[in-house]
């Protein structure tokens, strides 16, 4: 779920046209989040199978869903987040590709096999996973950062310097948990508190935008509610940046690779699925995007910085605070959208 919308879209479009092998036999069209696909890994796949890969970016699960539902997109592979996989399946957009029967499936970490969004992995294979946490420039604020109050009740040092990812689900998740509710709750009392808290907190934010990494480097932001991989990349550019795991509750995400039902290059897409379950290739994906993958043994192929990155290993004491963003019912989702619009007005 790494995204850095507009700029990377432009850059990636320019780059993706550059990725081409001269005499490719087949083709493979991948529809993935922006700034998320390792070019080295793609090049390796292209060489290994003589397939020309084209990557197109999307910036949100909804964009991907809308485009694929509309048809005529020409994509073979899509990488939706956990809470969207069931929607894709329910809408009949994903092929039952049975990755669980593929050769490299044995490499998938057991904890990512029987996942609620794809029991036994009949449709999708893990791409990357991570979490949304608080990112703090500790040269500005050196208090406790393992709390959502960093952005929901910002300490005075951080007021006017907080960026919050404009992601309805991630923000609502943290706020609901912060106010003592559970994800997908329809308890109006809790939700009213959530709305009021977010309205109040928003006054103390500077922005709700993507593209956080460079803003920490330039010190335009001193805190953010953002993804852990981005936190690591921000730390590489600003040594004072740390990731906090909100003890009140924070969302995990996993993006999974699925094959689209009307894909034209199903065989190549299956080759690709199998390919990314190889530890060495999975490590390349992680190395590029700075998120963990779900493939056992991939650590061996990772650089030391990545293997030891504090952003990529949740401390045991905070593990229980994390939860997956399950898909709520359409009515609940609609309710959350209304609250979200109200907050954003």
């Amino acid at each position, binding site marked *: 779920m790494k995204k850095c919308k*507009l700029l990377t879209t432009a850059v990636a479009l320019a780059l993706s046209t550059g990725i081409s092998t001269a005499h490719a036999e087949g083709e493979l069209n991948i529809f993935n989040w922006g700034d998320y696909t390792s070019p080295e890994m793609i090049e390796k796949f292209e060489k290994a199978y003589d397939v020309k890969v084209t990557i197109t970016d999307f910036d949100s699960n909804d964009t991907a869903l809308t485009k694929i*539902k509309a048809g005529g997109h020409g994509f073979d592979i899509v990488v939706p987040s956990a809470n969207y996989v069931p929607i894709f399946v329910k809408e009949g957009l994903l092929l039952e590709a049975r990755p669980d029967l593929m050769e490299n499936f044995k490499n998938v970490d057991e904890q990512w096999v029987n996942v609620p969004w794809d029991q036994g992995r009949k449709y999708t294979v893990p791409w990357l996973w991570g979490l949304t946490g608080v990112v703090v420039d500790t040269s500005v604020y050196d208090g406790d950062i393992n709390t959502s109050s960093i952005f929901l009740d910002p300490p005075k040092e951080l007021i006017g310097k907080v960026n919050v990812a404009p992601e309805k689900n991630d923000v609502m998740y943290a706020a609901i948990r912060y106010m003592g509710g559970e994800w997908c709750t329809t308890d109006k009392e809790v939700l009213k508190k959530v709305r009021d808290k977010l309205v109040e907190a928003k006054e103390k934010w500077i922005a709700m935008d993507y593209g956080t990494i460079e803003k920490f480097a*330039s010190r335009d932001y001193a805190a953010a509610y953002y993804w852990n991989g981005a936190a690591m990349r921000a730390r590489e550019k600003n040594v004072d940046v740390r990731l906090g795991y909100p003890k009140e509750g924070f969302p995990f995400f996993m993006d999974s690779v699925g094959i689209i039902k009307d894909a034209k290059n199903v065989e190549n897409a299956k080759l690709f699925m199998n390919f990314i379950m190889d530890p060495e290739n999975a490590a390349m994906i992680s190395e590029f995007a700075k998120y963990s993958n779900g493939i056992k043994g991939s650590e061996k192929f990772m650089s030391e910085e990545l293997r030891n990155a504090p952003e990529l290993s949740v401390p045991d004491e905070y593990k229980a605070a994390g939860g997956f963003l399950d898909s709520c019912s359409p009515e609940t989702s609609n309710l959350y959208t209304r609250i979200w619009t109200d907050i954003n007005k």
Partner: protein
Amino acid sequence: MTTKTDVTNNELPPYRKREALNRWIISLPALSIIMLAAIGPILIMLLYSFMVKGDYGGVKLWEFSFDGWINVFFQRDIFDETLGLADAHLTIFWRSLKLSILTTLAALAFGLPTAYFIATRPKHTREIWVFLITIPFWANLLIRTFAIQEVIRNEGIINNTLLAIGIIDSPIQMLYTDGAILFGMVYVYLPLMVLPLYASIEKLDFRLVEAGYDLYATRLKVLRRIILPMIKPGMIAGCILVFIPSLGAYVTPRLLGGGKNMMLGNLIESQFGAGRNWPLGSAISITLMLLVMFALIFYVRNATRSGANHG
């Protein structure tokens, strides 16, 4: 440009009639593209705005409902279910309208002197000036907006310069403010104001200005009574060209405002994206189009009136 094509007379000789017919035939491809690519989607949008929203985007085909339209202006309170004005939408409408009006006024204020300056240069240098005005269009809007970010951010060119010469002690927060949005919008749309203004000022007969001075009119009077009335069509055209795209502006408020406050464009986008409420999105889009249409009607009525004044 010649004035030979300026035909408004109804009593045309036969060869002119044939010419007129030919023109229709020649413009047929363009007209059919407009029909297919503009009117078709608008009809679909209109239809969608009256349907029941799909659970995961889209609509439930042929299930009709007024919910989309009702939701544009009214909403059930999220918490106590009473029906009230859609405060969120009205706030966003008003914010967009306000920003568009301010952008138009500021562009007019900056554009008029610029256009006047260009139009009063010697003929052979005017083209160079006009050419310079169009340079910003060479670069993509997105890239220009990112460039503005670089200029006004906390460690950007302006703040660093002011810090270096000691005028300020700490950076001024310019990025992600309403001022930044306005600045960006005026910058983006200024050429659209200057070009029509220039076209009408260029046609201005400066002998009339001289005559005004000869009759002891003050500078202000000359401007108010002679120049402004004669360039009014250009002013109105410029204002319309700036106002309309401003209403739907999306990228500039998003990047320079930090995405904290929604504009109409962002509201519509969110209904087709994460909001998954296509009927509402369609209804808001049509409302926006109606707003634009009223602005245009206002323009046409004004332009024809002032056009009659000096033929």
